[in-house]
């Protein structure tokens, strides 16, 4: 069927359906169950956590409004928040760099682009915990690489070391695959002409990268980077498996307190949960504010 005819039929249907608002309605209605479910689960869960953190749902004793849970671990909480921010920030930055490069290679479409795309596609569905276990087996003191190089004593403290190298490496690796695929997907939907036009007009590779490819992928890069940041900021298993017992990132600290045998530490765990959620929300808002400034997004 020729394109003009298809358009005509569609517009015909639209007029037949009546006023222009109505066709939107079924779409909104279809989304309502999912939205309600998500709102109830996320909103209900957050409200419960907030109530617990404020001492309104104690396991023993009577409910009493107090901020004690927030101040109980003052120093550790600040150190933990700083550590979490540093880990999530560094790994997100690395993931964006590697991911963007991977996207450019994928866009070239040659065999190495296909290889990178295949590798990224394989990495994304792999659970973080599997990635963490694999990283541990590979990089730990008695891990595979240490054995291959026979560097028993001289092996650097990558796993459980002071710089959290293994944790950052795992997040950067997994999230770079995600960032790479998202950015490549966005670039693929844009007309290639921009780059070709720029090339025809005599722009060199670097200039095309700076003035064409980077601005085109910036929104996707920012969104996927924010998702990666929030994920690594709030996730627990990688930091627990590959980190050290002190200082602790916020999620590890929250889980330790939640599982702690003392009955009073649950509100403290909930308080850390609230702080983690607040920082994540803040990161999302900041990212959104930046996105609004990007001409392409508008």
């Amino acid at each position, binding site marked *: 069927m020729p394109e003009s005819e298809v358009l005509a039929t569609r517009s015909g249907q639209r007029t037949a359906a009546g006023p222009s608002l109505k066709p939107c309605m079924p779409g909104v209605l279809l989304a309502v169950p999912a939205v309600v479910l998500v709102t109830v689960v996320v909103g209900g869960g957050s409200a419960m956590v907030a109530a617990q953190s404020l001492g309104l749902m104690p396991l023993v004793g009577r409910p009493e409004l107090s901020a004690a849970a927030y101040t109980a671990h003052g120093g550790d909480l600040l150190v933990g928040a700083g550590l979490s921010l540093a880990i999530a920030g560094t790994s997100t930055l690395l993931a964006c760099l590697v991911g963007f490069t991977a996207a450019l290679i994928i866009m070239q479409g040659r065999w190495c682009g296909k290889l990178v795309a295949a590798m990224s596609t394989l990495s994304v569905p792999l659970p973080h915990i599997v990635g963490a276990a694999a990283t541990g087996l590979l990089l730990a003191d008695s891990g595979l690489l240490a054995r291959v190089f026979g560097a*028993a004593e001289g092996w650097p*403290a990558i796993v459980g070391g002071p710089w959290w190298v293994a944790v950052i490496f795992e997040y950067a690796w997994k999230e770079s695959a995600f960032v790479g695929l998202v950015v490549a997907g966005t670039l693929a939907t844009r007309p290639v002409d921009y780059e070709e036009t720029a090339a025809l007009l005599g722009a060199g590779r670097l200039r095309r990268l700076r003035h064409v490819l980077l601005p085109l992928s910036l929104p996707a890069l920012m969104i996927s980077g924010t998702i990666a940041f929030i994920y690594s900021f709030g996730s627990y298993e990688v930091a*627990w498996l590959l980190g*050290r017992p*002190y200082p602790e990132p916020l999620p590890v600290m929250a889980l330790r307190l939640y599982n*702690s*045998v003392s009955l009073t530490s649950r509100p403290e765990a909930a308080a850390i949960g609230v702080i983690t959620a607040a920082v994540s929300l803040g990161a999302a808002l900041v990212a959104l504010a930046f996105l609004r400034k990007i001409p392409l997004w508008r």
Partner: protein
Amino acid sequence: MYGGDTQGNAYVDDYLVPAAAKEGVTLKRVPVADTKDALNRVLTEKQSGTTAGQVDLVWVNGDNFGTGKAAGAWACGWTSLLPNMGVTNPSDPLLSEDFGTPVDGCEAPWSKAQFTIAYNSAAVPGPPKTLAGLLDWVKEHPGRFTYPAPPDFTGSVLTREVLYSVSGGYTNVPLAFDQGAFDRLTPALVTELQDLKPSLWREGSTYPKSSRELNALYAGGQVDFTMTYGPAELTKLVTDGTFPAATKVLALDEGTVGNASFLAIPSTSGHRSAAMVVANLALSEEQQARKADPGIWGQFPVLNPGALSPEGRALFGRLPSSPVVPGYEVLSKNANPELAAAWVPALDELWRRQILAGK
């Protein structure tokens, strides 16, 4: 139940589950990374008012039991109804009190355990004979020893052992928690552990987070000592080559801490009678003997040898002995009692603040 012990898992799956099925009870083993997870589940169910909860029987002891009891997480007063309780010794202090918390029929005994330090006799030719001697050995051989960071169960026990040692024996530490005694005795413990720090693996700048990590270090030859509250696992780890063949159990003159572990029924359980059938079955001579076989699990029985039936005695007599781990009579010689559950979080928190976070 704790799922990190493959032999324990295999015993339950291969022997206890089929035996329970014969009694008409479907037993489903749910592995947890830490018994606290199971307790937390029960506490959450209690918080939400569930009466037919997901957990019907928990392998538990110590502070998890104490905390659960304080929060009303366990069903109580049912163990006297179990016929097989008759084969246990009612005056056995290990079975009537669990880390200082009166059992009060809230949990049925299952196994006894003895804290055990193991070493590689090829690397440590003249092993120390006391805990103080061990600490001296560590200072003379920097980087060859470490212990899991409390609140890990095993690391937590080691700090209590060191507390006994620096206090001049367990008789000098009141078993019931007492803030005065805590303030009086712990400075020596902190000093000792601080002094030890530079001689530990990675100069004590960090610690393994779990006994599993310590075992990995020991298996990789990075440290010469490991420790466990379940010495049964040593036999298998040496036989399958994970641990060095020269692994031996360190015999300490002053003895080590011993305890018993139990099966508790959550107050939120919807299948209380079925859980009682399983707890009774687990206490039977046949199951206790199977469980004590080093080739199966090697957990020490809780039964009173004097109260065994002739068949039961024959069953236990036929058990093979382990090439690595001495029998319970040897291990539990001079056994030290466990401190009351309230000591445990206090010591763990002290360790965290002073040793782990302190410089």
